[in-house]
């Protein structure tokens, strides 16, 4: 069973992003220091409102939808 260690809200998500040199662009999408959008394992750009979690591997950005949560629980994002 998964045991998340750290929890963030939509408002405090920016702190998590900052820890990894990421931020949010004008359209609300998560970008790296070069301004390139990050992608989920499914290849989708990620809006801050849909940012569900972060896993090691090196950085696996997880969407907050049911599909991603199920994959997370099943270990599909394990590095």
């Amino acid at each position: 069973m998964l045991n998340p260690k750290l929890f963030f809200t939509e408002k405090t998500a920016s702190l998590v992003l900052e820890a990894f040199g990421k931020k949010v662009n004008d359209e609300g999408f998560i970008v790296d220091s070069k301004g390139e959008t990050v992608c989920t394992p499914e290849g989708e750009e990620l809006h801050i409102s849909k940012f569900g979690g972060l896993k090691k591997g090196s950085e696996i950005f997880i969407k907050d939808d049911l599909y991603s949560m199920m994959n997370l629980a099943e270990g599909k994002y394990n590095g």
Partner: protein
Amino acid sequence: MAEIAVKKKLTPAASPKEIKELAFTRGVSVFLEEGGGHLEDIDSIFSFDKNSKALYINVPKLEEEDKNTLLEIIRYLHENGELLLKTAKKETLKDYDHYRNDPSYYHDKSLLKFFTDILEKDDIEALKMSLFLRKMSKQGKPVNGFKSDIRDKFGDRGANIANLCSSGYFEEFVEEFNTVTKDDFLKYYEKVVGHKARAWFIHSAITVDEMSVEFDAKIAKAKKYRMEDFRIHGRGKTNMQTIRKFVASRKEDEDYLFKKQFEDKKLSAIEYVVLFKR
């Protein structure tokens, strides 16, 4: 809300060490809060609940040094393989874990296995999500967010699969599958799932009167949102008969009309479209 067992106001010199010690303690969960909630009335950078082993960080109140410590903590936890998760998803993850350990999961897993070599991968994924949605719905949990997720991911097709699943149709498909060819089944399946118009899948044991009540509600909703049409679909001899009786019982209406889309005796399926007159 858990009672806060320890409330602390830290001096800047003390906070990095104390926060780190708590955050790195095994079994302690760290919550990055917006203020309010667990931290209401506490003029503090953090609060620690001994009972639930929860460390709540009041993010808006962080000074620069505290913030840098927190960034360090976040990176350290991540580096050590810890999962960082949106608070709102905690329950979903827990529910899904419980579902996978529930005895009824075996039935759902078998259903998925049955259709794996028959349906496309995306439909299987949509069905998988729908089975979990169905379980949560039966437990009385809120599922609207899940339904949106299925529709967002798999479109109208996914939404149709979710409705079929909730109505028990996939279990019926398994029973009937050996009585028809795979091609016939897939043609029928595609008619049902591939159609854009919203479908009302009639489940067993519904009476004509019950259909009437539900139908009126659907008509009201369709009119409100200016829908063009919706489908009424039923499988099995009983449902087919009920639908025919229902359609026959409705007097002609100025706002809509019924049009039979198909009737398949081999698969025992019938579908009407309710078309709104403009």
